[in-house]
């Protein structure tokens, strides 16, 4: 990431964003040539160029729901930026343009790449959300299973108690019988 510093004090660096509609390849190349021609007329020196490519727009601009962005970094005399601004305004196929003076020590970031990265990461964020949902569901299922296991255990215990009680009674009866039938006992 190169930092921006004007070569001389008379020159300043400008960042120009241009939004143009989706065109056929020939027209697009012609338009870009013309736009770069405006800067060449003024004697500006290109530092960097960042073509974002096709992007969806937040609202329709002259009927276009999609557009192309190009961002230029030019070094030029500040007195002549007005001519470029005027030319860009007159140019037919330029929907929007914005001229900004970046602050001192500004680092050029290629947002065409970072945006794509972000798009990929955002998908992963969605995946994380779905994963969290699945985990919650799994937890709920596990809880239900535990509750069911507990209930079944309790039922079994009750059943075993029910089974044991008659066994105990039978044993008692047997013992009683033994006691009764015991001849050694003298009362």
């Amino acid at each position, binding site marked *: 990431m190169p930092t921006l510093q004007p070569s001389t004090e008379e020159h300043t660096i400008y960042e120009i*964003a241009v*939004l143009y509609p989706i065109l056929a390849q020939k027209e697009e190349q012609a338009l870009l040539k013309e736009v770069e021609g405006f800067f060449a007329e003024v004697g500006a020196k290109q530092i960097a160029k960042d073509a974002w490519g096709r*992007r969806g*727009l*937040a*609202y329709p*601009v002259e009927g276009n729901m999609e*557009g192309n*962005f190009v*961002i230029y970094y030019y070094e030029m005399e500040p007195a002549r930026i007005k001519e470029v601004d005027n030319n860009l305004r007159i140019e037919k196929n330029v929907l*929007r343009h*914005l001229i*900004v003076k*970046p*602050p001192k*020590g*500004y680092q050029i*970031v290629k*947002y065409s790449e*970072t*945006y794509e990265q*972000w798009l990929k*990461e*955002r998908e*992963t*964020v969605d995946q994380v959300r779905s994963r969290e949902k699945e985990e919650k569901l799994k937890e709920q299922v596990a809880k239900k299973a535990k509750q069911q296991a507990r209930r079944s255990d309790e039922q079994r215990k009750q059943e075993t108690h029910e089974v044991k009680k008659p066994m105990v009674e039978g044993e008692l009866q047997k013992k009683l019988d033994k006691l009764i039938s015991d001849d050694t006992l003298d009362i």
Partner: protein
Amino acid sequence: MQPNQSFLQRRPDLKSKPCPFCGKQTKYIDYKDYPTLKPYTDYFGNIRAKYYTGVCLKHQKLLRTAIERARFLAMLAYRK
């Protein structure tokens, strides 16, 4: 990985919330940086008040200019 942004929707305790831009020592907020600007606008496209997001006044002013520039270039919506 992006941080979880659900904190922007919760009603916060303002004193306990540090400014997210002060933590990174940002001097300039770029209008081209869509992923950072997006969470500071609500569903209708309005800028979230700093009371809710915890952004300090200095960075809120930078944010405002960045969002307004992004709106002009149709990267963010004026109104949904």
